[in-house]
């Protein structure tokens, strides 16, 4: 009996942390989806996330307001996205390498600012769990949704940033597939010459998507530092931003595919954390390795190549093809 309960508790724990941990992937990968659908590979996501994580954390540390922190992270992310857009769209820099430059800049600068402005590991009060209590909508009852067995424990114990990450998926799908602007994004990424002939400004569309990608990457970083963990450490994203870029390939450049990939990865991560917690006889290093191995295997599925935006990583010049 006792054992059965603990198995259920473990399953609940894994599912709960799986959903939590999908948050940063979702923000960063959805943002990167927009950038890549318009033809720009922004490999600097990891660096933007670190800067977002730090600026969000610092503002909350100073002001105490999670909302101001979120705003700061989004702004910093957007500015870095703009920089990436300027470098890759206007100056035609090679995208893979300039992304690495942006990563190094973000890693160095966030660490530098952390060391000079804060210096030691501190905690903050970021976004807290939403309770979903009936009392808060005016019904006179003590009941809260998180009291529902299993379901409530898995789904109704998260902070706002977690829920909005999941809401972002259908929104992104709708924007990409059902709006004129989404059509322009796809056209610019698939056939910029044709889009240009039809009067779509390739540069403007790419500027907007890459900045949006930066903004969301900033929020992705903040989701770690002011919601999930409520601390900042140097290099705390630890490769998450690179996986987020890979998830876009994994998800075949669609928001729903990205969602599936993000959940798969976060569940594996959660599983790996629980393997360590439960002290099972599996070396934790092997468990940590799993997501990366899986990414490589997933990228090897051949049908993905056909789905890649045709103009990805190619700078656009009018009159060339």
């Amino acid at each position: 009996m006792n054992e059965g309960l603990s198995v259920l508790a473990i399953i609940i724990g894994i599912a709960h942390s799986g959903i939590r941990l999908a948050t940063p992937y979702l923000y960063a990968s959805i943002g990167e989806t927009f950038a890549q659908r318009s033809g720009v590979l922004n490999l600097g996501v990891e660096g933007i996330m670190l800067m977002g994580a730090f600026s969000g954390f610092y503002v909350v540390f100073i002001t105490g307001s999670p909302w101001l922190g979120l705003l700061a992270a989004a702004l910093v992310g957007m500015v870095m996205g703009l920089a990436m857009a300027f470098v890759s769209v206007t100056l035609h820099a090679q995208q893979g390498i300039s992304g690495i430059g942006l990563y190094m800049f973000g890693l160095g600068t966030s660490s530098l600012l952390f060391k000079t402005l804060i210096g030691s590991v501190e905690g903050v009060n970021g976004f807290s769990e939403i309770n979903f209590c009936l009392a808060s909508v005016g019904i006179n009852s003590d009941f809260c949704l998180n009291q529902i067995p299993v379901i409530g424990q898995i789904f109704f114990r998260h902070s706002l940033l977690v829920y909005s990450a999941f809401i972002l998926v259908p929104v992104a799908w709708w924007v990409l597939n059902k709006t004129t602007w989404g059509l322009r994004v796809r056209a610019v990424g698939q056939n910029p010459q044709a889009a240009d002939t039809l009067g779509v400004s390739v540069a403007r569309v790419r500027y907007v998507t890459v900045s949006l990608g930066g903004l969301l990457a900033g929020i992705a970083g903040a989701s770690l530092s002011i919601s999930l963990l409520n601390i900042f450490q140097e290099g705390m994203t630890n490769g998450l931003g690179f996986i987020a870029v890979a998830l876009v390939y994994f998800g075949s450049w669609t928001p729903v595919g990205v969602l599936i990939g993000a959940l798969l990865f976060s569940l594996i991560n959660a599983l790996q954390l629980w393997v360590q917690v439960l002290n099972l006889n599996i070396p934790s290093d092997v468990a940590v390795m799993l997501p990366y191995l899986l990414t490589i295997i997933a990228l090897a599925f051949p049908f993905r190549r056909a789905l890649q935006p045709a103009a990805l990583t190619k700078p656009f010049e009018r009159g060339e093809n």
Partner: protein
Amino acid sequence: MQMKRLSFDRIFIALLPLISVVAALLVGAVILLLLDVNPLEAYEAMFVGAFGSKNGLADTLVKATPLLLVGLGIVIAFRASVINIGAEGQLIMGALIVTFLGVQLGETMPGWIVIIICLLAGTMMGGVWGAIPGFLKARLGVNEILSTIMMNQIAIQIGFFLLRGPMIDPAEIEAGTNIPHSARLPKPTDLPRFTDMAKWFGFTESAKDLELTGFSKEIYGLLVEPTRLHSGFLIAIAVAILVYIFLWRTTIGYRIRAVGLNPHASRYAGINVPNYVVMSLTLSGAFAGLAGAVEILGLHHRMFEPLAVSAGYGFSGIVTALFGKLHPLGAIPASILFGGLLVGGDKMQRAMQVPQVLVLTILGLVVLFVVSSEGWSQRRARRRVSTTDADSEGEAA
């Protein structure tokens, strides 16, 4: 008139990497000002720390060694239009196999044989770690940027796994501290240091004995007196010359460059493009693996935390290659410059309390500026060509 303009353009384009570094240092100066630090003093501390004394110079060249080796691998990959971000992992894998072989074989045969075996094994292991993403790209179309990044993480975890288990220093288990590092490689496997080599040639007097002063004293001290400088630096220089000969004087090297410049034309010319993609990534990884071997044999003499051994060389090696304009010989001064920057950053941290990570910010900016200015100048060149075409067409009409 046009000739003059062209040559001015050429000079400007040749100087772009240098201009990029200066621009990055200027941005760094702004950051220092915001941190309330006098940038001139900070940069002076950096420069003097890296180049002003025999120990500073020795450390600079010690750091230049892996930078140059990794950078040479990056040069080959980038020349073939393949982006290798996986040098960190390739270096770690090289270092791991060298540590394993060094500890196992060290006492059983003469040191110089073990050194040669280790150098070859490290090179091959790095090559394997580069060949995997190469095959994945050539056969299955897997984006090599992403796969090499993932391979880095896998190498780091393999490193931790081995160092916590099979390869841990027995002394750590005995002491119960269990710090994940290997045993020290036997002394005879140490790469000879410059001071050892000076003794072979009969230089034993110190700079003091010879009454040298000023900078010549430091240079003499660097070459003869005991410092950390080891013969790995000479290996790296030799490899740079070999890579130059390989890329510009052999058919295979020519084909690698052709594939990078225009894969379609290369295919028409009968070059098996996928094979050359695999080859360039394999070679790229091999040099990173060699860097790992040299780091273990020449400097650390034991393996510890993987990321502390690779020390970001996989990324700063990219900066080295870019600054050297993707030329193997250009990578030599580039590696010394950035080796100096890394050492100088450390000295600056001690002298001025400015965190050393500022160097990473500057390196990132150098990358951004170099690739931006390259992209921009290529675009300008293309535009000029197309306008001259239009002009001549107009004249013909």
